């Protein structure tokens, strides 16, 4: 399976608040709140670290969860966030640095 690379969109505003992340989409002013796990993935989405490595480092190391299951959930999450314009996903590393 091809690796997935994720990068935070430069079109959003975001801030941590009490372990969760508030995100406002500039596209349609929709407000989102990411829980702790999703926030950890968001924070690590630098555009050049594969999602599998992010999950291993941020989710599996912190929670008692199987790698395959965690990766499956993380993929669902990043695809959902990508559909909302919050994250970008690619099968190649992004060339520019995520913010």
């Amino acid at each position: 399976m091809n690796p997935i690379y994720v990068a935070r969109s430069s079109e959003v505003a975001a801030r941590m608040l009490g372990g969760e992340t508030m995100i406002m989409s500039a596209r349609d002013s929709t407000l989102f709140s990411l829980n702790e796990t999703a926030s950890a993935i968001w924070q690590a989405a630098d555009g050049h670290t594969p999602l599998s490595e992010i999950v291993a480092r941020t989710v599996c190391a912190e929670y008692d969860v199987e790698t395959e299951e965690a990766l499956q959930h993380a993929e669902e999450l990043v695809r959902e966030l990508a559909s909302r314009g919050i994250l970008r996903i690619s099968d190649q590393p992004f060339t520019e640095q995520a913010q």
Partner: protein
Amino acid sequence: MSLMQEISSRALTLGVPLSVHLDLTYRCNEHCIHCYLDHEDHGEMNTAEIKDVLDQLAAAGVFFLVFSGGEIFLRTDLFELIEYARSLMFCVKLKTNGSMIGDKEADCLSRLHLSCVQASIYSHRAEVHDEITKLPGSLERSIAGIRRLRDRGVKVIITNVLMQRNLGDYAGVKTLAQQLGAEYTIDPTITPKMSGDRSTMQLGIGSEDLKSVFRNSELVGKVSEFCAPPPAIDQAVLDEIPCSAGHTACYVSPYGDVYPCVQFPLPSGNLRKQKFLEIWRHSTEMNEVRSIRARDLPICSTCLHVGACTRCPGLAYMEGNMRGRSLADCEKSYARTGISADESTHEDFPIAVD
């Protein structure tokens, strides 16, 4: 509870300043008759100082950032500051009169993914708008600026401050907003000047006109909800905080002065001398504002409007007592519900919406 309410509630619990209004300058190319500012430059923070403030605000957890003035486009470093703020992931809103937004400015703004740009329009008629701004041609230029932003997909909100001079024109401004693809909002609040000069107050609309505005569904939405009688007074109502000023929001002037709110000129510290979090957490003034609950307001706590009043503690402060009444808001409550603040201290509850 909406997500925004949940976030505000969490910020309140954690003592996080969720929103900051930062005036970049008090200088302005317009000289509006109702403006509360002194337009002289008494030593604005420079680019490096503002960037440092932005770093501190981001570290403090500020999410919603308003850049306002004065006219912000008079700052030659405006785009550098917006870009820097966006690099820190703030949700940035700009307040401007729009008159200095040419194609180049609009192109830049469209790339910065702002939350929105809020522009003041007083009338759809140049003779009325320009008389208020005291700048001939200002309506034409503001509309051109707004149109450039809308052409590039930037969200624009037109704010229509209502005064006696332009009260008859709100329908025209609303239609203009629709034609431009902008949102429209009214603001019937005229405030005293920050110096304490109250001469601007006489420009505002009176009770009868406020009543008509508040019963106009095109302006306020569902009138029965907007003008609903206030809830019964119970412990929860008396435990309410008056507003977000000093709790989850504050104001920073172009000179680095920190106040609880742009409408609450209580000097609480200065960012040229102290760190933001030191002021936010430890200033005597902020903590005094923060300590006040509805039950601590000697007059308002006995008023039947207390559970629904939009009382502004800043306006009350400017009237002489931050725990006192804000007469402008008493008038608004009266205009909404049809019951005067004086009557409302009676034990009966004879509220009847007209």
